[in-house]
């Protein structure tokens, strides 16, 4: 296929946490709101002049300093974030908002705060920690509303004078939805038998929407969507179509590695992915926007820390539905090494997707930076692709 016009541009942006667009946003007088988890309602971090930047640590190498502070039993993303913060990689942040979603990320941010890694010279800088919902009940919605007020809206208003009115929230949701629509429309092309975008390319575009100021990339994404409408797909068939599910994937090389083995990543259900993170928020006029946003996040949340059985089952059904919708031949459940929530979710999910929904499943744990042990992962994916092919042959289908 012909290269996408902006692919290289986006790839370059993803090489640094403190990328050139963040610098541009700072120069534009924007307030950089750093956050660490998909459970924080994103539109609230993009009110007025605020721009949300989800923290990531691309091209992570040594984790020595973070391991000293946090021990080697904690997940690599949490240590990588701390390492990057200590190195000064997140100095653009004007505040950090983090939920107590999982203990490890929470500890990482606490260490950042204790070590005063950010906010030097900015008297308005603040850290906020949020309680987030465990279940999808109205009691949880009430909790979320209160937490968003106390730990996002009020601090942003008091420190930076941000307009947190209902109208401002609705306006932020509208901008958020515009971005979601573009990403989802681009993602739709992956449903095609001969897809005109690869899983890797899509992940690069989607990832950029989390780690770059949205207002600076929206036009390029829209242009890419137009470009894709006329893009000629490759003629070569993929060996298998897989749905990638799991904990955070902010390293596109992982998706690339899977596709290099002939498995097309037809859909993404992980943190930093488009499902459920790029789902439009539909607002009505009967209820306050904040409450509706909170309800949207709670109902759509696919994070394993949601503990009621309805949610436990729903997460697997959601994956199965996506697999059907995107014509996946198999599912890859992945987990970053030492991640407790996904360790269990991966086990239960891979068992249920196979037993209850009949999908072939590859269940793997992986390092944060896939380059550090790509050989093992390659072998696992190759074997999985071959097993899918053998199943297809046994069913009388294509190899």
């Amino acid at each position, binding site marked *: 296929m012909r290269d996408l016009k902006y692919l290289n541009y986006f790839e370059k942006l993803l090489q640094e946490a403190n990328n050139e667009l963040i610098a541009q946003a700072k120069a534009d007088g924007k307030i950089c709101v750093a956050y660490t988890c998909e459970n924080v309602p994103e539109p609230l971090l993009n009110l007025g002049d605020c721009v949300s930047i989800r923290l990531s640590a691309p091209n992570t190498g040594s984790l020595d300093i973070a391991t000293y502070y946090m021990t080697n039993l904690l997940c690599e993303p949490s240590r990588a974030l701390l390492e990057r913060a200590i190195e000064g990689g997140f100095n653009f942040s004007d505040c950090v908002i983090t939920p*107590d979603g999982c203990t490890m990320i929470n500890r990482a941010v606490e260490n950042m705060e204790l070590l005063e890694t950010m906010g030097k010279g900015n008297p308005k800088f603040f850290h906020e920690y949020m309680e987030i919902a465990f279940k999808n009940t109205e009691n949880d919605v009430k909790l979320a509303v*209160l937490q968003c007020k106390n730990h996002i809206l009020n601090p942003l208003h008091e420190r930076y004078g941000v307009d947190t009115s209902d109208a401002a929230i609705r306006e932020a949701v509208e901008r958020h939805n515009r971005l979601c629509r573009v990403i989802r429309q681009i993602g739709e092309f992956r449903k095609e038998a001969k897809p005109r975008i690869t899983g890797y390319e899509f992940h690069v575009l989607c990832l950029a929407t989390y780690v770059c100021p949205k207002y600076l990339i929206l036009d390029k994404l829209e242009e890419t969507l137009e470009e894709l409408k006329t893009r000629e797909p490759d003629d070569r068939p993929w060996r298998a179509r897989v749905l990638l599910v799991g904990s955070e994937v902010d390293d596109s090389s992982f998706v690339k590695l899977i596709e290099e083995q002939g498995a097309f990543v037809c859909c993404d259900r992980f943190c930093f992915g488009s499902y459920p993170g790029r789902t439009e928020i539909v607002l009505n006029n009967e209820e306050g926007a904040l409450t509706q946003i909170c309800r949207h996040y709670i109902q759509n949340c696919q994070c394993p820390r949601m503990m009621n059985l309805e949610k436990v089952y729903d997460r697997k059904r959601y994956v199965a539905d996506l697999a059907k919708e995107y014509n996946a031949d198999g599912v890859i459940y992945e987990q970053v090494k030492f991640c407790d929530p996904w360790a269990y979710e991966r086990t239960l999910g891979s068992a249920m997707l196979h037993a209850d929904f009949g999908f072939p499943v590859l269940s793997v744990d992986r390092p944060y930076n896939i380059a550090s042990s790509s050989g093992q992962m390659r072998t696992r994916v190759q074997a999985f692709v071959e097993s899918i092919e053998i199943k297809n042959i046994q069913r009388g289908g294509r190899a």
Partner: protein
Amino acid sequence: MKTVEKIINPVPRAGEQSPGKIYDEKLKVRARREWRGVKDTFYDYTRWLYLLSVLGRFIMVPRNVKGFFRYRWMMSYLFVPHGMDKFTIGLRGEALRIAHTSFNFVIADVTQAIANCFRGDRRVGNDKAYSDKCVITDENSMVTFMMGFDRDKVHTILREVPTMFASNIFHQFNVMHYLDIAQQYGIPGDVCPMPEAEAGISIEDDFCVLGCCAVQNNTTCDGSLMGNGIIAKRLDREYGIPTFQLATPLRHKEPDVMDYAAQEIKNAIAFVEKHTGEKWDWDVYFAAAKRVNDATRCRIAQMEINSTPYPQFFGAAFSLYNDTNYMGNSGRDPNFVKIDHKLLKLAEQGYKAKRMYAREYRHRAIVWGVQPQYVIDMLYWMVQCWGVVPLTDMLSVINTDMIADTDTPENREQAYRDMAMLNMEMIMRNHTHGGYKVLLDDLWDLCEKMNADARAASTSCGSLTTCATRASLPARPSATRSTTTCAPSCARSRSTRRWRTFLTTKHTKEIAI
């Protein structure tokens, strides 16, 4: 760096001076029991007889024999006397009596819990009428939401306590099989072994199956929360036992979570009422609340005694009693009150006589970690071998506030908040969740309050205890010496080795792992 005055025991200690020498490495039990002088050895012997009588009475019931041969974890209970030996290493006088009084009571309580499980178990006793009045809860669950139900009408079964928690204390290798099972099904080997073992037991179908409903809690860590999903699925899908997830906020020091927590308690109570057909009784609740306050007062007094140069409450046996009382009982059983006061009386007696339990006290330590120090005998080695006195441990540092205990209309509403507060301040969770202020600032405050000059952290899970430690050290440079051991359930030698290194290294602020 802070130091404390070394105290030499003026009274010669009767009996063994080196308890390690009587350990049989091959059989993993003692070659013989400890000689503690005539009086204390005889006392220990009578307590051993008592334990045998408890176990003997249990096994005389036919369904318990059936259960014994059905459930692998039951094998651990053959090692109960060994567990008691482990928890009385080097103890004499009042401390020995405190260990026996507290832990023998816990053993009797656990034995009754097993008997109750077998009575209702569909595979063993199958007493359906009984099972229909049982509510199953987690091992690490605070049972405040059951405080207002009559114990004779609704039975609370902490199903995972006898199955995993207690059995692992007596026999450290008990959980290995279940960990293997869990890992065979794909759970990685790097998660906390406690919830992983519980998940393994569920996968292996080695839990008793009983109860009209179950209440699970996001207890102390991410692993515990997630393991519940696997267990709940089996309860729900295979056994048809409705399961309620009682969500408890993590940032429990923030006032903006209280309404949510109180509402969750109300929902849990409504769930139990629906499935048991029994009604919440405020008289029962406030009677239990009075006992909770009484236990709190006793616990405060215990901490005060341990803050003096002559602490009297030693080791895991006492801590486990406190945990059982606070969390598994929550004021529901009046028998705990008598034991509380008996323990306090013994301690006061020992304190007045300035009784010491080692040849010398060189350091005073707070043990800041999770359950591993219960399973291993680290605390006893600390004091006997190196004179490091374990003053208290993280799991024993729990709520010290009184709750409303008189029945008024206002207090009935307050009661939900009190139950929510107790639930949020559950053992372990009150320090492992809520940020570094409760994880570390509380520790340094405690070090100052209890005049400690050392801190030992033992943990089986990195996310909980050790991770933020180093970052906060510069904030309180005067605090303590510090060492951290990673102590999964069967790593006695590793942790003791680390302690030896710690104590023999001079001018060391912190030993790197």
